[in-house]
């Protein structure tokens, strides 16, 4: 495709995100420094410093949780690993001798600068994250899966137990590792650089190819695989990047605090960072930073109201019976309330997935001009899709019993049959979503039987779904861009059709910046088709594209499918009940009944076939 492999648009996906990151950084740091200056004293300086560190942590967490939708308890565990690694390397040998005289591996003699210690901590933690990532991938982690919760929780817990019990190295629960480096973060320059870099990394990743594919998989794992995305690869990239940021932040935190104990990175900090992430909006970096600022302010307010009574910030309520609220321990209660309250009333956070740079780009960026509808593309090379004696048993039920069909990318082939005939099962077998008990699937002579879904999609067989599976919180244009991005790196031939042209061809240009979930039914169907076309497929496999449509709409759909297929030069294999639609669009039709092909021919031949009529009307076939 015309656009870059990594960032679809240089303005929208690179320049504006960097600008937006700078503004977010400036706002957070400005607000923090202003507060500290107005308040004065070291306490407020420390508060602001730890807010900046928390911000880095939360941005790191956002890179993974936001883009993949996979919930992680484990990131603070990674922080613990990084924090201890940093401490062990950076602490003065004399201090180590006092606290952990039995330390193995010659750790006692190591004395590196904080910068080197941070780099080593990042490398070590990211390597461990790689192993954990493989485990998560194997367990089939995806948005909302229990396995990811359990594995990441286990990581947090095991890290904590090790930190508590391996006293030779960690100093255990009591001693801890305190610092003899002398320097602290007073200068803050390193902190500012790291925080700014984290925000930029998070924003660029979200706009990058990898980030977009991860978000697509977050929205719908199955549909993402059907579009040639391998979710585990994108999730792992997000994990490594996010853990890298966390590791730097954890090193800074240990440096700032001046010591490390097992509880520095455990449940309490997990809760704090998670609350910050979800209050602002976990799907957005702007939201994550907003959450950090809001929760830091709320906690500080609660602390001061709790400890100093209610004569603070001009709020003087002497005599009001409010000491049942304003007392010690209020900050924790506020955190707990924030978590539960936001989950109940605003689970997507204050600003959901709104991004500052996205807004700026829509407002001030160069407007993309309306593209021309895409030209139609002649089919150059003939490819044949063939299923050979496919058998599928579900337990004792035989859904497919030796189904043979053959289709060329120069034609539109229909697949009809009564309910339960095995039509969808056959498409599921072809697209790798159901493993056949026997039989083969071939495209252009190469065997695709039992290949993973995303490889089948990359080979050129791209499907739509009976029950519509759009990436619902992505915009219309982003939906199509995702498949164009996959096509750009995995499809050999380029059609030269851009995502914008496809959106225009689908008649959705006016809706391009709306969320897919906001579209009406007909437009959703058209978008699903445009998204499939973006993959530059050899074949479009359409599972009931007109289900739930009126007669007029399904006639429109005939035109629409023809045009989309012609635009990318793809053949079509379509399942439908709607005879009018099938007759209108198909060159050739197969009729399936009880898992086998009972008839094949032109639409009119099929309509006239008594075996077909018998199958539909339920009478015994008379042959």
């Amino acid at each position, binding site marked *: 495709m015309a656009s870059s492999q990594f960032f679809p648009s240089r303005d929208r996906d690179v320049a504006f995100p960097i600008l937006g990151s700078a503004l977010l950084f400036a706002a957070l740091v400005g607000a923090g420094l202003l507060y500290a200056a107005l308040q004065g004293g070291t306490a407020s300086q420390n508060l602001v410093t730890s807010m900046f560190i928390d911000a880095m942590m939360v941005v790191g967490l956002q890179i993974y949780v936001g883009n993949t939708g996979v*919930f992680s308890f484990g990131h603070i565990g990674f922080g613990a690993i990084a924090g201890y690694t940093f401490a062990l390397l950076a602490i003065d040998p004399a201090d180590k001798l006092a606290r952990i005289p039995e330390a193995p591996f010659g750790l006692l003699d190591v004395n590196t600068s904080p910068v080197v210690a941070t780099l080593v901590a990042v490398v070590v933690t990211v390597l461990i994250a790689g192993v954990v990532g493989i*485990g998560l991938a*194997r367990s089939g982690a995806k948005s909302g899966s229990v396995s990811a919760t359990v594995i990441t929780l286990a990581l947090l817990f*095991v890290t904590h*137990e090790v930190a508590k*019990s391996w006293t030779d190295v960690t100093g255990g629960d009591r001693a801890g590792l305190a610092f003899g480096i002398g320097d602290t973060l007073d200068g803050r320059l390193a902190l500012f650089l790291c925080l700014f870099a984290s925000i930029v990394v998070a924003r660029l990743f979200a706009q990058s190819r990898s980030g977009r594919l991860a978000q697509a998989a977050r929205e719908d794992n*199955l549909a993402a695989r059907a579009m040639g995305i391998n979710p585990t690869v994108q999730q792992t990239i997000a994990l490594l990047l996010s853990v890298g940021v966390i590791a730097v932040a954890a090193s800074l935190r240990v440096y700032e605090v001046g010591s490390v104990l097992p509880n520095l990175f455990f449940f309490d900090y997990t*809760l704090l960072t998670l609350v910050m992430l979800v209050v602002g909006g976990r799907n957005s970096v702007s939201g994550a930073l907003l959450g950090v600022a809001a929760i830091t302010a709320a906690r500080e307010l609660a602390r001061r109201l709790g400890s100093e009574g209610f004569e603070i910030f001009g709020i003087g309520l002497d005599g009001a019976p409010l000491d049942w609220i304003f007392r010690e321990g209020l900050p924790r209660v506020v955190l*707990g309330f924030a*978590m539960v309250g936001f989950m109940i009333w605003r689970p997507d956070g204050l600003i959901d997935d709104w991004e500052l740079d996205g807004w700026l780009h829509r407002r001030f960026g160069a407007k993309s001009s309306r593209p021309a509808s895409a030209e139609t593309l002649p089919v150059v090379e003939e490819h044949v899709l063939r299923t050979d004696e496919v058998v599928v048993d579900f337990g004792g039920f035989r859904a497919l019993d030796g189904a043979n069909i053959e289709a060329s990318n120069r034609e539109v082939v229909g697949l009809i049959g009564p309910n339960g005939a095995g039509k969808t099962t056959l498409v599921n077998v072809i697209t790798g979503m159901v493993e056949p008990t026997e039989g083969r699937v071939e495209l252009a002579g190469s065997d695709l039987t039992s290949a993973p879904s995303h490889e089948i999609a990359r080979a050129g067989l791209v499907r739509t779904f009976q029950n519509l599976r759009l990436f619902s919180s992505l915009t219309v244009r982003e939906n199509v861009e995702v498949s164009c991005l996959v096509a750009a790196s995995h499809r050999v031939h380029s059609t030269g059709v851009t995502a914008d042209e496809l959106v225009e061809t689908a008649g959705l240009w006016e809706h391009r910046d709306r969320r897919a979930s906001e579209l009406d039914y007909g437009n959703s169907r058209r978008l699903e088709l445009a998204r499939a076309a973006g993959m530059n497929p050899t074949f479009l496999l359409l599972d009931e594209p007109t289900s739930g449509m009126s007669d007029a709409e399904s006639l429109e759909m005939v035109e629409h499918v023809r045009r989309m297929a012609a635009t990318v030069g793809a053949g079509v294999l379509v399942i439908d009940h709607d005879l009018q639609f099938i007759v209108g669009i198909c060159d050739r039709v197969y009729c399936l009944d009880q898992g086998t092909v009972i008839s094949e021919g032109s639409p009119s031949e099929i309509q006239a076939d008594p075996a077909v009529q018998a199958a539909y009307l339920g009478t015994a076939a008379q042959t």
Partner: protein
Amino acid sequence: MTELIQNVIDGLGRGSIYALLALGVAVIFGVMHLLNFAHGELITVSGYAAYAAFSTGWSWYLVAPLVIVVSILTSLVIERVAFSRVRNASSFTQLLTSFGIHFLVSAMFVMYVGARVKTFSEPSWISDTTAIGPITVEVFDLVVIAVTAVTLAATVVILQKTMFGLALRAAAADFDTARLMGVDSDRVIRGAFALSGALAGIAGIFWLMRAGNTAPSSGIDPMLKGVLAALIGGLGSLRGAVLGGLALGVAEVVLRSQLPGTAAALTDGVVFALIALLFIFRPQGLITVSHAERV
């Protein structure tokens, strides 16, 4: 040999408590598909209720039923106040809600009762032993095992023989279909939380007897044991939860007696790591309740 048998009985005593906790976790997971991190808070709340009752001079015989009642009520209140509002939300939202409740409850106790541990006297017979042939066992373990057996039998009767049990099992198998078949979803879920609270209450009696104290963070341990045992058992499966609880109890006692000091303290960590590995290598075998996606 006798030591082993003694360990196993000791482990079954411990494991019975875990089994009751795990069963409560599994019942909720069955109907709501929610891993309830707030489960341990039932024991925190009833622990404080017990403490309050003791300080007005109640005996264990009165406190025991009180613990059960408080646990059931707490469970219902948490459902009404929080979980009923996120019932149709994503599992992400539900999980964080339960996590938030866990913190909120302990934070409230810190704020209103204080962070200090509150102690009360254990029952006098807690460390009595009795000899069965060559084996010396704690009376407490025998009582726990017996009460658990009766509780489980009662639970089986409720689940198998009552309309509520049928509705609950139907809802656990397929919540939406059960609703279409006329199962009142509100009642089933409230019932599930009540059952879960009752089981936690019975477990809580023994937990508190053994601990002899309560603190704001008391909930973490029972929550962890319940969740771990339910995970071992495969989460959705009630029978699995019970077996998981017993297995966890026996494993703990055996490991503690066989391993040197520091390693024994790692039991939970080891179990957790093993469960994580199980999820990594056999995700399909463990998550028995996940339904195939329809495409």
